[in-house]
């Protein structure tokens, strides 16, 4: 689960330099360079989008939007942040936009698709209890506001340090810490009450 995250976090200076070179070539219009970027980062982008949106069944549309936005913004990529960090920031922004569109759509269609029923039917035994517990955890994360869900996903699931999250979200480290504290508190309240039932 965390292989991609650790891989990204353990990027060497040489890898970062390679990414910057590829990004520069892609910014000049080299289609092959952009294809390399997509191939190298689509897995992690898809995983982050999947988690940020609350584990939906379909993420391709948002992932495509992430790379379309990246293609559009490549000429302005100056390499101040690493390419993965830059792509993560775009992914977070695209998830926010997607969430807003979904909320508007739900208001008009009155369809709560994001809070759909569990995918697996309930079965007897401890395995079924585990599934129910995991489902409750995911629902608790889904209930978090997106700004809190972002720090939870990036910190606990992507295992990013607060400094890295701050760069992705364009926040100060203390602001990220504050959000993480609030998210933990809300999750703990939500889950402790349900686990006791």
């Amino acid at each position, binding site marked *: 689960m965390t292989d991609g995250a650790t891989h990204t976090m353990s990027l060497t200076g040489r890898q970062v330099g390679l990414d910057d070179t590829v990004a520069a070539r892609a910014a000049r219009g080299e289609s092959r360079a952009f294809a390399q970027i997509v191939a190298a980062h689509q897995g992690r982008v898809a995983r982050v989008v999947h988690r940020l949106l609350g584990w939906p069944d379909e993420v*391709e549309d948002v992932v*495509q939007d992430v*790379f379309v936005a990246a293609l559009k913004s490549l000429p302005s990529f100056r390499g101040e942040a690493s390419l993965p960090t830059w792509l993560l920031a775009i992914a977070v922004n695209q998830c926010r936009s997607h969430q807003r569109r979904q909320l508007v759509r739900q208001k008009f269609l009155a369809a709560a698709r994001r809070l759909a029923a569990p995918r697996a039917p309930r079965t007897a035994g401890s395995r079924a209890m585990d599934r129910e517990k*995991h489902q409750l955890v*995911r629902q608790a994360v889904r209930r978090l506001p997106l700004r809190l869900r972002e720090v939870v996903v990036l910190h606990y699931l992507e295992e990013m340090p607060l400094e890295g999250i701050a760069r992705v979200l364009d926040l100060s480290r203390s602001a990220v810490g504050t959000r993480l504290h609030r998210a933990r508190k809300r*999750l703990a309240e939500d889950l402790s009450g349900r686990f006791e039932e």
Partner: protein
Amino acid sequence: MKEDQLAGELREADAAFGPAPALPEDLHDRVVRRWRRRRVGRRLSVAAGLVAAVATAGTWLSLTGPTKTTGLPPEGVHPTASGIRALDAAADARLATVERMLVLGERRRALGAAAPAQAIDPVEAVRRQVDRSAYLILLRADRLYQVTGRRDAAIATYQQVIKTFPQTRWAEVARQRESTLQQQTGDTL
């Protein structure tokens, strides 16, 4: 719930869901196609916006144009002294135009009435004049006899009408009256 426990629950729940949905192998091509579609869409939107702006400006100018050309203030605005002068000038100009149109109309009507008179055949006009002259001479002969009693002078004048205007109806009248006078002369003799 402690932070470690919470982190563990989150990771277990995430892992239990499995990996993210698979992406298509041609994701790069799809991304590039979507990017091109959106670029074309943006350009079309800009073009449509420009067309709409030009149409709006044209409509606005067509609505406000006549007010500017006639010098009339827009509705709901009280005219100032200069505005009143402009209105007077516009009214005078319109009255002058109406008067010119009336004069032209009168002239056209007069020309229309005169046209039939001018259209009379010249031969007919001469014929009328000859007929009128014959009548006047005949009338003079009548007066010579009836007023002054000069029969011979009257007969000579009738003969002058017969000789000078033989084609007129008055020549026949003159002939009858000459014959009458001649008979009266014979009876007297």
